[in-house]
């Protein structure tokens, strides 16, 4: 089964190589902590200077904390659903940060996952 973490690992090199994603990430320096059911443990991403890095464990100062179902998060990365769907229907929830931040995150993903980027 795809997990959010395994899918993130897969797409991060493509995001870092995408000029569109890089442009969006330069304007969005954030640390996003993921605490998802179905994962082996917590993980986080650090977006800085137009690059995204994946890290294990709990970051001490995240801007956003995402909880919920890892399969739903994987669907978002796979481009099957926009992140607004699991956020609206409660399959993913933010315990810290605002939904608009995750819409920006989805815009970054869209640079490589959607037929037509948002």
């Amino acid at each position, binding site marked *: 089964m795809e997990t959010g973490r395994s899918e993130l690992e897969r797409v991060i090199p493509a995001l870092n190589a995408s000029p569109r994603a890089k*442009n969006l990430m330069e*304007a969005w320096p954030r640390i996003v902590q993921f605490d998802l059911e179905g994962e082996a443990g917590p993980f986080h991403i650090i977006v800085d200077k137009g690059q995204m890095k994946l890290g294990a464990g709990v970051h001490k100062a995240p801007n956003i904390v995402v909880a919920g179902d890892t399969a739903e998060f994987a669907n978002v990365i796979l481009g*099957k*659903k*926009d992140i607004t769907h699991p956020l609206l229907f409660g399959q993913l929830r933010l315990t810290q940060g605002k939904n608009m931040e995750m819409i920006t995150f989805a*815009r970054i993903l869209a640079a490589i996952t959607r*037929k037509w980027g948002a």
Partner: protein
Amino acid sequence: MKRVAAVGIGQLPFRSRYADKSYPVLAHEATEKALQDARLTLNDIDAVVYSIYCPLMMRQDSPDIFVQDYLGLQGKPSLRVAAGAATGGCALYTTMMQIASGVARTVLLVAVQKGSDFFSAATRSRGDGFNKAMSISGDSIWSQPVVVGGTPPTLTLWYVVPHLHKYGNPTPEQVAKVSVKNHKNALVNPLAQLKVDLTVEDVMYSRIIAWPTTMYECCLMSDGASAMVFASEERAREITDTPIWMSGAGISYYPPSHSAAGLGRMVGVHEAAQRAYQMAGVKNPRQEIDVAEVHDLISGLEVITYEELGLCDIGEGGRLVDEGVTEKTGDVPVNPSGGRVACGHVAGVSEISSACDVVAQLREKAGNIQVPIRKGKGVVETISGGANQCTVTVFERRS
């Protein structure tokens, strides 16, 4: 009233941005195409009507004056019409009245609008810059602190969700089907801005803008220009063998936000249609209309528009979608161009581009997007952002 005919059409493709061309250049190119189509020159034009929605989005107040100068139309009478995304519909009405009244014999109608030169430094999105610029298009005194005018969330709130509650449709799947239809139509339209082959799932699971409206169910933001030449009957018969008559035009102003009873209905469209049909002698729109280009500012509105135009009973729009009646191969094709969600949208131009499309359809010269013409009548429906100002125009091919 004198009869009025469309004798020339000129359209530029919708694009997310014409970064290399200013608005007078776009207007000039569209005008040139329309005049070539009519085999006329600027000397043959008696008067000009400009369909230009928003000076702010062009970063130029009174842009019509500068277009007039650029076109070399010094000395010709002209006026500009502005009524949100119904600008073009109102400009068609104004053009009709100029000729029908005998004030002018040959009128050039020029539509141009740029809107995507704006940019938000905070989000690096031109869309966000555009939205900031257009936010004062809504009611800046009462509405803006709460909700921004004719945006997809507002349209969903006023029309789609109340309609779903009252009549049980359109369901999210039905709305997505309409979006898929229009995107498929745009695939073969050389003027369309967005060419992407979508499935119902692609549409339904794209970003939620305001449930149930998703991103692919929202109109595009475009730059564009279109122009048309209209003439009196006597003049039209000198110009062309295939005049397309503007046989009916109706306008209605009906703000839905002022009455809970109006929620879920686009009463203004209904009233405008009744006026236009009466003028054109249309008794049974479902049987008499061959093609319609309508303002699908969000796909859910297209379904409600079917009802208000009389293509089905009120509350039956969802059924029309499921039966495929408005598909390109259906009884009454709607938006064979791809509509505003796929062909492109910028107020002032979309409406005139739609009129050009309907004229081309009735001439049976619409190329890849041609649909069968049986009775010889087509309709253009436009609404301002909140569907406050609504227009319906009937075009007709007859001897």
